[in-house]
Every structure is written in structure tokens, then in C-alpha cells.
């Protein structure tokens, strides 16, 4: 059927009007959503959990090829340096054996001293291992999605570690997935101890690669190479978890190089230390 020209142009006008209406209402909706997100965080968090749970299986499949390629490249690199690495490892092994005997000696000494003082040991942590399926790193937020959620025992506020140190903490826990706020995120604030003197400071992320130390007493309180560990203040993190070392000091800005290399994290461990520093959703709304 052919429409007369007049009808076509009227149809075209109607279509463009409808389009304009759709555009304006959707723009209005985005602003409304931004306001809702600010006012009702629980509702938005629930929506985020549900979407993350639904999309995680897809992301899991999509992240597989990159992981395989990365493993392959790493294997090649390791193969090339296998001889030197072997020599280094042998040397490290002899050194570690000496340390082992020292550790055994200290352990038995520790045990006997604990018996003498009647110290109640801290409860040990339970761990859940999960794969990283999405790194939603952008200029605005630094978080990762992992393949373990409430079903596996992951809860909001739990500590997330990789082999070398602290990765961050669980920000949201869905049923099958969880979002981890990285220590480099602009919202991350961690009470830490710096160097052997144990000077207190707060480690603050800025969405870059290196978080910074704030509220460090004075300029001499840190030096490049100083180790940074969690202090355990505020009970959000247990004390003594390794984070990184002071990398650069410039005009009062102290940058910390994290031990965990962001580009290499494929798996993380979610640790439950039974801490109560981060309020749970129910407790927060009460």
C-alpha cells in the first residue's frame, strides 16, 4: 500500500515528535534516577546486586579468553627466565630454611609465654576464594566484581586479599557475586601504620594507581620504602595486613605502591575476621 505524500509527511512529523518526547522523558528519568540514587541507596544497591548476579555468568565467559592469553604470555615469560629464577629460588630456599628454624624456635617460645600469661587467642579467619570477572576501573570508580556472593558466605564489609596483600573490601554482596571496593578507589579510607615506628595515618585512594597517606603526623614520619600495614583502628580491618610500601614523597604528598599488582589479579580471597567495624545494612538503617 502506498501512502499519499501528505500522509507520509504527517506520519514523519508524528514520528519525530514522538522521538523528541521519548528523548526528553528519558533525560528526565536519568536525572530522577540520579536523585533516587542519592536519596534511597538501599533500593539502588539492591538493583545493583540483582544486575551483577545476572550478568556475572556472562562476564565470566567473556573474561576467559583474556585470562588464557595472559596465562600463556606469563608462561612464556617464565620459561625464558627459568634458569635465573631457579638459581634465585635455590638461594631463597637456603635463606628461608634458616628463617624456618628461627620461626619454629619463636613459635615454641611464643606458645610457652602464652601459656604463662593465659592469653585468649583471637578467632581465626575463614576464607572464600573467588575469581575476578570484571574490573570496572574507570576514571570514576575503582571496583572489581567477583564470583562469590552471600551463598558462599561473602558479606558486606569483609576483607579481600590477593597473594601479596590487601585488595580492598566487599562493598556489596549479591547472592552469586560481590563488588569489591579497591584500595585505590576515591571512596576508600583505611587506617594504617607506616614504617617500623608504626606512625598512624589514613590511606586514601584517588582512582589512580597509587593511594596516598593523609594525616601523617609530620614529614619525617615516613620514608620511601617504608612498609604500610593496616592498623586495625575502627575495627574495619584486622591489624597487620600488608598493603604496600611508600613509593614517592613529593611536597607533603606521600604515595604508596600497593603490593597487589592490579593487572595480575585473577583470583582473590575474601576473609571473614568476624569484625563489626563496617555497619551492616540492617544495623545502619536501625
Amino acid at each position, binding site marked *: 500500500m502506498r501512502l499519499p505524500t501528505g500522509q507520509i509527511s504527517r506520519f514523519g512529523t508524528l514520528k519525530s515528535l514522538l522521538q523528541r518526547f521519548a*528523548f526528553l522523558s528519558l533525560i528526565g528519568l*536519568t536525572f530522577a534516577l540520579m536523585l533516587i540514587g542519592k536519596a534511597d541507596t538501599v533500593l539502588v544497591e539492591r538493583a545493583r546486586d540483582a544486575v551483577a548476579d545476572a550478568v556475572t555468568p556472562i562476564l565470566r565467559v567473556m573474561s576467559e579468553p583474556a585470562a588464557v592469553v595472559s596465562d600463556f604470555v606469563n608462561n612464556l615469560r617464565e620459561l625464558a627466565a627459568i634458569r635465573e629464577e631457579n638459581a634465585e629460588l635455590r638461594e631463597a630456599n637456603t635463606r628461608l630454611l634458616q628463617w624456618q628454624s628461627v620461626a619454629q624456635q619463636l613459635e615454641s617460645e611464643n606458645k610457652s609465654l602464652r601459656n604463662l600469661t593465659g592469653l585468649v587467642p583471637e578467632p581465626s579467619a575463614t576464607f572464600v576464594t573467588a575469581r575476578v570477572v*570484571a574490573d570496572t576501573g574507570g576514571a570514576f570508580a575503582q571496583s572489581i566484581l567477583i564470583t562469590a556472593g552471600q551463598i558462599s558466605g561473602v558479606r558486606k564489609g569483609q576483607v579481600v586479599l590477593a597473594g601479596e596483600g590487601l585488595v580492598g573490601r566487599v562493598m556489596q554482596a549479591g547472592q552469586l557475586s560481590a563488588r569489591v571496593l579497591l584500595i585505590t578507589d576515591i571512596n576508600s579510607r583505611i587506617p594504617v601504620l607506616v614504617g617500623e615506628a608504626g606512625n598512624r595515618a589514613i590511606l586514601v585512594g584517588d582512582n589512580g594507581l597509587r593511594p596516598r597517606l593523609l594525616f601523617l603526623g609530620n614529614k619525617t614520619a615516613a620514608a620511601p620504602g617504608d612498609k604500610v600495614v593496616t592498623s586495625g583502628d575502627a575495627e574495619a580491618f584486622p591489624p597487620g595486613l600488608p598493603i604496600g610500601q611508600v613509593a614517592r614523597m613529593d611536597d607533603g604528598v606521600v604515595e604508596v605502591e600497593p603490593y597487589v599488582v592490579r593487572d595480575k589479579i585473577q583470583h582473590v580471597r575474601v576473609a571473614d575476621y568476624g569484625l563489626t567495624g563496617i555497619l551492616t545494612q540492617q544495623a545502619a538503617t536501625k
Partner: protein
Amino acid sequence: MQATVLQRMDNTARRFVPFGVTLLLMLFAMTPTYIPGLSHITPMYALMAVYFWSIYRPDLLGYGATFSIGILEDLLSGTPLGSGALILLLCQRIVFSQQKFFNNKPFGIIWLAFALVAAGAGLLRWLCVGLVASSGFTPAGQMLTAYLMTVAMYPIVGGLLARAHMKLLAQS
């Protein structure tokens, strides 16, 4: 000639190519790349796709589809809900309104125009996130790096999208 059921199904599936490809690109942006030094800055892939389809197939990617992709991105990446959708919609609107300008332009001009659109989009998103998020404004340096990477990646992503366009949507 009447199209068979299979042909009709095939045609319908092809109409979803722009939406599907944009969605895939948005998800791809989130998968870990394990490339040293690049994982903390992700280019705005979804913006590239929305820009591309708005120029070449405005009939197949409507405002509703763009909106849903933006919202999904916000929900997944933890950015303020609505901020990603807003810039995608505005980008689409700008391209739609300049349809005549984009018609048969060489790639260099399209790229240059993208650099402008992406600059506006990046700036607006930075403002939106800074005003809405409790953490305030993120350092402008990160935003600038993300922007430059977005502009630098456009020829590659645009090339792939053009291939998808020619292969899958040539007849329709």
C-alpha cells in the same frame, strides 16, 4: 514475493545487531584485560558504539535502547545511576540533530567530531559524578587519560563496528 518465516526471523535478528554489539562492547570494557598499567583506566567503549550507530544506522538504535545500556553500565560499574545513560543519550541526540553534517563525511572528520563529542561527554559525566557522588570530584588527570584513550581507540573500535555493519546489515 513473500518472505519465509526464516527470512523474517533473520531480518529481525539483524535489527538487533546495533543494540547487541553496543551491549557487548559495554560488557567487554569491564572484563579484565591484564594489560600492565591500563587496567585502572577504561576507554568509554559504549560511547563509541552509540556514536557509530547513531551516524550509520539511526533507525536501529533508539533512545530506549541507548538508555537501557547506559543504566546497565551504571549499575554494573558502580557509578551514580543515570550519569552514564545521560551522556549516551545526549551524544545520540547531538548526532541525530547533525545527520546532514555526518552524511558521507571522510573518516578523519568523523573521528574529529567524535573527539569533540567525547570531550563534551567526558566533561559532563565528570561534573555529574562529582556533584552526585559522596566522594566529590575525581582528579581531572584520570578523566583526561580516559578521554585520550577513548579518542585513540575510536579508529580500532570504529573499524570493527564498520565491519559488523557491512557483514550483518548490508542488505537491510
